């Protein structure tokens, strides 16, 4: 090993250690957080973090599709909403078991993902955007008029889900740990996926689809797999959402939500997994702070922030941090230029 190589190796090791250290500290803080709720920090923040965890799961899946594979879906609310409604209907009419709801949401969204994905992935770019958007609108319009689930008024009176062990999911703190567990699990699985041969192939498709096909990959199957994975992530997120809110309305299918998922991914930093979670946290926190005095019009601020990021830092918050901090810290967090 030459001197330069040894140096590079040492910096890489140092960066990896640093990142691991950072991750452990962050996770420890999140685990300890509810203990201070009510005294050190407001209960409200526990609730906020639950929502961040839930949307973190959704955006992690979305990032595999947009950030790694380069396919921009504009209808991802269709999977979030399906997970949410499947859980709501099961909780209310079948069984309050969260495991049943999670299993059913995953199955439903996987099937939906295969079906919609099969029809959509033959098109690219803007046509893919329009098609996914149109399919999501079907669901929105359908659930907005289906009397069984309360049509436009939504579905109230959904019972609290149960775990099957003597822990009450209706308790905010318990739900906090439950959703945090899912976020960590979702992250670990996603990291595993993007480092697998499939993940490498997806990046290949993003960078040059034709070349990847010539290398012998079944491009369509790879994209479809990514689409279904992101659909399943969306379904899990939707199911966790209903479990916490105990209320579902057709707004979970709204195209604005699809847009927000896209914005979370882009703001955080596409193709980095951790960035999108940061993006979700940023969007949800900003929304909470601003909507108390701006109501729905807080979206104008989000739109402005988003436009500024597209113009000046399309690599998102993580890309901005990469430029601001010493280079070796982030050298392997942000790979290449990302999706764009």
């Amino acid at each position, binding site marked *: 090993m030459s001197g330069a190589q040894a140096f590079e190796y040492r910096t890489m090791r140092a960066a990896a250690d640093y990142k691991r250290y950072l991750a452990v500290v962050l996770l420890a803080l999140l685990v300890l957080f509810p203990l201070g709720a009510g005294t050190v920090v407001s209960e409200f923040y526990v609730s906020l973090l639950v929502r961040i965890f839930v949307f973190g799961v959704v955006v992690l899946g979305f990032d595999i599709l947009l950030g790694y594979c380069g396919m921009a879906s504009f209808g991802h609310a269709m999977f979030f909403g399906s997970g949410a409604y499947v859980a709501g209907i099961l909780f209310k009419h079948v069984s309050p078991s969260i495991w049943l709801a999670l299993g059913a949401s995953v199955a439903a969204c996987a099937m939906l993902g295969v079906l919609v994905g099969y029809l959509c992935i033959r098109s690219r770019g803007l046509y893919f955007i329009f098609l996914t958007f149109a399919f999501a609108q079907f669901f929105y319009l359908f659930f907005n008029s289906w009397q069984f689930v309360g049509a436009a008024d939504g579905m109230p009176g959904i019972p609290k889900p149960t775990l099957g062990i003597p822990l009450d999911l209706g308790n905010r703190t318990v739900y906090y740990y439950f959703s945090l567990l899912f976020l960590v699990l979702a992250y670990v699985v996603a990291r595993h996926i993007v480092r697998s041969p499939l993940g490498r192939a997806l990046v290949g498709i993003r960078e040059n689809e034709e070349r990847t096909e010539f290398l012998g990959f079944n491009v369509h199957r790879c994209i479809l797999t990514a689409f279904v994975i992101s659909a399943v992530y969306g379904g899990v997120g939707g199911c966790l959402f209903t479990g916490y809110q105990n209320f579902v309305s057709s707004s979970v299918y709204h195209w604005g939500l699809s847009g927000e998922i896209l914005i979370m991914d882009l703001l955080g930093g596409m193709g980095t997994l951790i960035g999108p979670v940061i993006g979700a946290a940023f969007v949800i926190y900003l929304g909470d702070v601003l909507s108390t005095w701006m109501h729905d*019009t807080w979206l104008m601020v989000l739109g402005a922030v988003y436009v500024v990021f597209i113009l000046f830092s399309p690599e998102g918050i993580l890309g901005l941090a990469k430029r601001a901090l010493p280079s070796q810290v982030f050298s392997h967090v942000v790979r290449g230029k990302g999706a764009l």
Partner: protein
Amino acid sequence: MSFEVFVTNLLYGLTIGSALILVASSLSLIFGVMGVVNFAHGSLAMLGAYLAYTLILLKFNFWWALILSPLVVGLLGLLIELFTLRPLYARNPLLQFFLTYGVAMIIANVVLYAWGGDALGIDKPGSLQGPVNILGVYYPKFRLFVFFFSAALALGLWLFITKTTWGVILRAGIHNRELVEAFGINMSRVFTLVFALGSALAAVAGVILGAMRNLNPVMDLDLVIGGLIAVVIGGLGSFRGAVLGALILGLSESFGAQLMPGFSKFTVYIVMVAILLWRPEGLVRGV
């Protein structure tokens, strides 16, 4: 379906369709020349409608509002192109779509913030109130005005594109930007003007459709989706395609509401999905 009902639906479909031509053709022109799918188009139209509403409140008459509001929106379009779209042309086209989505979000919520969420109405000029008798059917005069006005404007745009030197530059720019620039034409300036013109046309459509129906803070989605579907049906970047698509859409909306009440919103998306799956390149090729 009786003859009167048929004529009413036909007229109404053609009226909506012709107003949609203004949205669709300008959307198509922007895409054809600049390669940008402008998701903010509906929001610009909506902004135009609300500006006209305020101008009329300020004692301008309808015709002045119909001229001034598109001018203001056109100017805004000029600024949007100069400051937000221009830095992105060399990048991935998806980024431009994402950007226009952000711009749409800003405009839509500024409108909501400034004018509130309730539906508003624009007073129609006195000479255009009341119905007129066509083939035994009483049809509102204002709708007839919307039809003839939009049709005339669309015809004017068509003549502009096909008969004038400016139109030649536009059509050449769609085919080969570098070559046009080699002839000493500043395409950057053309881009800016096309975007401004497109925004102004969207505002015209917003004003007349807003006066025909009403103004509400979600009309932007209806307009941009209507325009996009018309363009997609007709073929991205094709003027004749946009006209055809807009008329198909207008007629399917009026007859769809008549034949399948409650499902008219679905039909729009079904038409779009069917056409995209069947013929992704649209129905019409060429300008």
